[in-house]
């Protein structure tokens, strides 16, 4: 295989993997910015979304309906999660909350096994299987969906946070919780909505990912972690940076696999994380920060 076409193929692979991480990272960043919570169960929302959607599709629902219903269901689950696990512990330290989300993630996985078992399930790609060829490299149409949807979410979020009242209220909450309360904005309600919406976003991410890599109870673990890393690399403070971070990791992993060996793939991402943490804890793109989301 020619050098250039391998290179391009690796870029495509990297973008595909990166878009998977990006979609999860968005939800992650939203929650963090609004509530200060680091949600290690974010990947599992994706998992729940994917499996629920597959169930509906297998019951005979058209894809669009299945997607919509699944997203709504997972959003509700997110809300329950917030009320039952986060809200009662809202005054605990970040570390405690982090571990609570780990516990919740276990619960999601366990319930998932009980409902869907351990075998991976398949979801057919949204627009068929014909791969697109470009300079001797191929990219799946589903990857384009993933990339597209992450960019679209980004645009929607930008609009939401910068152009709507609710969005600005939410930002206010983040900047100064007390002042926000004085103005009649309830941080607790914000927290509830932030987690719920992120859950829904995560579900959507899972549904988009499923045709590429299959869906099973444990798909959320590594994806959630890598998205976490992406967000941290991006600086945790805004979604575009997180998405950039996600694509960065995706491409880095891809190139490691392509030129070195696949065994080190995970180690590379975590090494990058450590480098960023030690030398640039505000993230690689932190020049932009000041304003969140």
């Amino acid at each position, binding site marked *: *295989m020619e050098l250039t076409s*391998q290179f391009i*193929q*690796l870029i*495509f*692979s*990297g973008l*595909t*993997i990166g878009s*998977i991480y990006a979609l999860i990272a968005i939800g992650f960043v939203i929650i963090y910015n609004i509530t200060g919570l680091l949600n290690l169960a974010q990947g599992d929302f994706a998992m729940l979304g994917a499996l629920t959607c597959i169930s509906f599709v297998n019951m005979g629902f058209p894809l669009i309906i299945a997607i919509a219903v699944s997203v709504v269901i997972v959003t509700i689950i997110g809300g329950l999660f917030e009320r039952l696990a986060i809200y009662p512990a809202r005054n605990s330290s970040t570390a405690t909350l982090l571990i609570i989300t780990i516990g919740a993630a276990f619960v999601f996985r366990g319930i998932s*096994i009980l409902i869907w*078992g*351990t*075998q*991976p*399930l*398949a979801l*057919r790609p949204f627009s068929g*299987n014909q*791969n697109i*060829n470009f300079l001797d490299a*191929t990219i*799946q149409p589903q990857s384009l969906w993933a990339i597209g949807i992450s960019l679209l979410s980004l645009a929607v979020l930008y609009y939401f946070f910068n152009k709507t009242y609710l969005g600005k209220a939410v930002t206010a909450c983040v900047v100064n919780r007390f002042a926000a309360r004085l103005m009649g904005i309830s941080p607790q309600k914000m927290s509830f909505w932030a987690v719920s919406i992120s859950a829904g976003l995560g579900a959507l991410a899972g549904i988009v*990912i499923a045709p*590429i*890599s*299959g869906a*099973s109870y*444990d*798909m959320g*673990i*590594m*994806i959630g972690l890598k998205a976490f890393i992406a967000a941290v690399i991006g600086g945790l403070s805004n979604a575009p940076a997180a998405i950039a971070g996600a694509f960065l990791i995706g491409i880095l*992993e*891809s*190139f*490691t*696999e*392509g*030129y070195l*060996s*696949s*065994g080190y*793939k*995970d180690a590379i991402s975590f090494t990058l994380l450590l480098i960023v943490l030690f030398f640039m804890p505000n993230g690689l793109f932190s020049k932009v920060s000041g304003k969140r989301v």
Partner: protein
Amino acid sequence: MKKFVSLIILMLFLSMLAACGNSESAGGKNNDSGGSDVIKIGAIYSASGGGAPLGKSQMETVKMLVEQVNENDGIDGKKIELIAYDDKSDQNEAVLSMKKLIEQDKVLAVVGGTLSGNALAMVPLAEKSKTPFIASATSKQIVKPDDNSSRDWIFKTTQSDDVVIPKILAYLKEKNLTKIAWLNVANQYGTSAHEEFNRLKGEYGIEAVIEEEFEATVDDAKAMLTRVKKSNPQAIIVWGTAQESSVITKNLHQLGMKLPIIESQGIGTKEFIELTGEAAEGVIFPAGRLIVAEQLPDNDPQKETLIKYKEDFKAKFNYDANTFGGHTWDAFYLLVNAIEKAGTDKEKIREQLENTKNFVGISGIFNFSKDNHTGLDESSLVMVQIKDGKFVIAE
């Protein structure tokens, strides 16, 4: 608050009492753990955790078979009491469960070991306590360890890698495919096959132009596959179980690599075809006759047994039986057969197992001997191809 604490302390004591209670009631001598009218058999499978895709059907098979035997008056009128533990794919659990079965539940024999690592951890316990152990994992170290430690009490109902790999190598040689790309999943299942491949490929004139590993959690391996493509192989071997092999197979298809693809018996499930879609077309792999049972000629000695197992399993559990469950079927019936012939003395059972010949099972026809505790050879496998979304016997 106080009540909560008392409850916890109570639970702690209860569990300790439960543990004590079990050990007292189990009583009886080691040789005759049949008690008066019950035959105790232990089972340890990975019904959850990473090994669940293999272990779940194994656990369900053994439970179904025990029920069937007990409905037919058990063995010589004695019912079987099955004590089954899920080792959750965790080695420590496997070891603890094994100890529990041997020391506390005092079983006559154990069937189990979904994952090679867990089986290997259980082996020394079986040997030391002189309890027959029939494993369903694939590593040949289970019965033929490199350090030559004793394995008198250990048996295995899977074809070892040193039986499966030669089958593949012979097939490749026959088709004149000598430059091979080898890809395996990064766990014991994959690496032990890889070792075997490297050991034997020379004898068949096969050359490995590239050897790669992929993670069991892989989403997209096209990056790694670009290197494979660069190395210009004539055929590709992909060694993993259904989920990860499916991703690799799909990626190969997407990269337009139209080479012959040979995979492991781990993909012999309907899920693989569903997950992989049209990319699965043409994939060839060695397998026991179970998945092509209907296509066998009527005079095939295994056909009847295979079809009965398939139908019973599907009827009870609503999904297709697979080779892994098949290995458990073999382990169980070999044991039952031995008990029927030799009674409930552990040593006699062991001897009987060792001398079992021409036993028609799911994975093949078994012929055990003192040196051969696996009992299967290449004839137990057929090369299967995926055509039009179905498994057919390959030419």
